[in-house]
């Protein structure tokens, strides 16, 4: 029997360090574990459906696609675990602090900088949010995309950084990023303190999830969940891996935080209800 095999996307070399480290730790706990890296989430989702892997570490958009592909095949997908830092994120639409932009309507005719075409947090969610406020991304504004590592669903932060730089340099009137990244960009000096202001922000949503499909042996899945939730930030062996992966504790999975993205995907026509890729500029 093959080990319980996880699929993850190689958006950064550290991904190898993370899953080698977690893999060793799982081995020490007597859990037979392996991992496969994919270059992008679309390939990973398709491989998941074919049974190439048992669990996938999914971006929120990959969750949406996997759920849709599974549903189209008469199957069900389940969110089994996520990071504490994956819950209740928001995306913000930033403008320059001194800009004469009092509300979303004032962006009409302007340029909105976003991340990669397939970034849920820096493109799909904020553009759908703006659309909900009456600003159609196709006709009311020029969308300035920053396609860093397409197929990696915006995991690479470069697209968001580029969007903010475009705003700071005056090439855009607004920029869309995750709430916490404004603090990161301030810390690294990309933006000055008090240089940017939050014009509007999305409702809270959830980010990554561990996804399994029906038919995966439940005893093994339960043990995997138990091990994840048992990882302690107090453990000096595990702590560096948790820090690399950007969490302090694993939490049970939930799907309540994905409704907003499901709606955004429909509104912007990114995937069909069956998980087919529709969007122009998206891979394949």
């Amino acid at each position: 029997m093959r080990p319980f095999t996880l699929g993850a996307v190689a958006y950064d070399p550290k991904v190898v360090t993370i899953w080698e480290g977690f893999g060793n730790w799982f081995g020490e706990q007597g859990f037979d574990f392996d991992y496969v890296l994919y270059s992008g989430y679309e390939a990973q989702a398709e491989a998941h459906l074919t049974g190439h892997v048992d669990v996938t570490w999914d971006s929120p958009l990959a969750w949406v696609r996997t759920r849709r592909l599974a549903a189209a095949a008469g199957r069900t997908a389940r969110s089994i675990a996520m990071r504490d830092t994956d819950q209740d994120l928001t995306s913000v639409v930033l403008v320059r602090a001194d800009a004469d932009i009092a509300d979303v309507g004032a962006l009409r005719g302007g340029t909105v900088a976003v991340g990669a075409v397939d970034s849920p947090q820096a493109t799909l969610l904020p553009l759908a949010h703006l659309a909900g406020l009456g600003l159609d991304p196709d006709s009311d504004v020029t969308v300035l995309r920053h396609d860093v590592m397409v197929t990696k669903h915006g995991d690479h932060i470069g697209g968001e950084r580029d969007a903010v730089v475009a705003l700071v340099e005056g090439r855009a009137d607004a920029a869309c990023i995750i709430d916490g990244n404004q603090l990161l960009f301030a810390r690294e000096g990309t933006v000055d303190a008090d240089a940017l202001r939050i014009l509007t922000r999305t409702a809270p949503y959830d980010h990554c999830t561990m996804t399994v499909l029906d038919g995966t042996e439940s005893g093994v899945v339960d043990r995997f969940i138990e091990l994840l939730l048992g990882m302690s930030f107090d453990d000096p062996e595990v702590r560096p891996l948790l820090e690399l992966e950007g969490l302090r504790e694993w939490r049970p999975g939930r799907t309540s935080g994905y409704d907003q993205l499901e709606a955004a995907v429909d509104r912007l026509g990114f995937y069909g209800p069956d998980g087919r890729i529709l969007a122009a500029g998206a891979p394949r």
Partner: protein
Amino acid sequence: MSTAVVDLGPLGLDGGAHVLVNLALADRSAGERVAVRGEHPALPVHLAAWCRQQGHGWRTGDPGDPSGVVGWVERGATTGARWRGAARAVGDDGSDGIAPAAVSEWGLAARGAAVEPGGPTPRFRLDRRDDLWTDRATALYAQAAAGQWDPATVIDWTVPIANPPEVEAAVVTVMTFLIENEEAALVVPARFLGQVHPHFREIQQVLAVTVADEARHVEVFTRRARCSGRPLALSTAGGRASLQTLLDEPDYATAAFLLSVMGEGTFVSLLSFLEQHAPDPLTRQIATRTRADEARHVAFAMAHLERHATLDPDLRPRLARAVEARHRALQHTSGLNEDVFDALVLLAAGAATPGAVRRGWDRVQELQRDMADGRRGRLARLGFSMAEAETIADLHTRNFM
């Protein structure tokens, strides 16, 4: 405990406000809260994001709250996790004491620091106190730091050199010899420096400043050799073979003994000789400066080995065997110092005349007695008997180092 309040004024989290929040959280326990007041418009958004990343809880207050509280941060359970199990990098007495054995996990951490577990475990070969320690290191390092000198300013390079050509050639021969010896004195401590566990920082500091001293010595002897525009003299195979045995010695105590007690100790005599008898004031100035440094190098090795020898009864026999082995290794080499010896005679003579050469000859005889006396004296201080000291001093390589 009442709820603490932190007032951020106009400061936002994009301008460092988390520093103040952290200070307010520092004396809270997990689950306890700090109320945050402030005027920055993005505070609720940024505090929520920051708390999520830091593992703290966050509750937004009422926007119109007259107290100005924008919300509450609840200290998370994982805050301060790095301190858990972090042991101090000190000896068992719990003070800032020197440990008998430095722990690999301490790595580069400052002595006395709390060391978060789970880091790298670098291997420093010299990690045992009794193999390298001396309490005198602190004072010797302080002396060395205070005694650093700038070759460009403390030595008057404008003094004209008016030595007769034969005498100037002798000076160049001696300088050529000195430079390669200084190189050995630089490379040997530099190699051990990287092997000393950082816990013993005073030892590192002395070795580091010693290497800097030797770098200056290489510089000033090189500059002096070139003063008269002559090419440098011959580097003999035997001379280099002798120095190579110092470079090849893997044991720290043995290397310190051979290089510093035997070699640099002898150099102190040689530099005093140059200070008194060199034909030009420039060479004499250089000798004065370098001799002060060398005396410190000898004192450091002596302090270490005196302590080491009282703790380890095998050390003295080991050192004696090392001198014998070095003697055997070098007994079939030749040309060690004939040229240098004759150059020293001419240098001290100051002129190529029978009367002057006789004067130089007598001075070099005196130098050799001085060197042998110094070696015997240092060996006696290390606890060797008179007879042992005599034997070892005699076996010491014909090369002065």
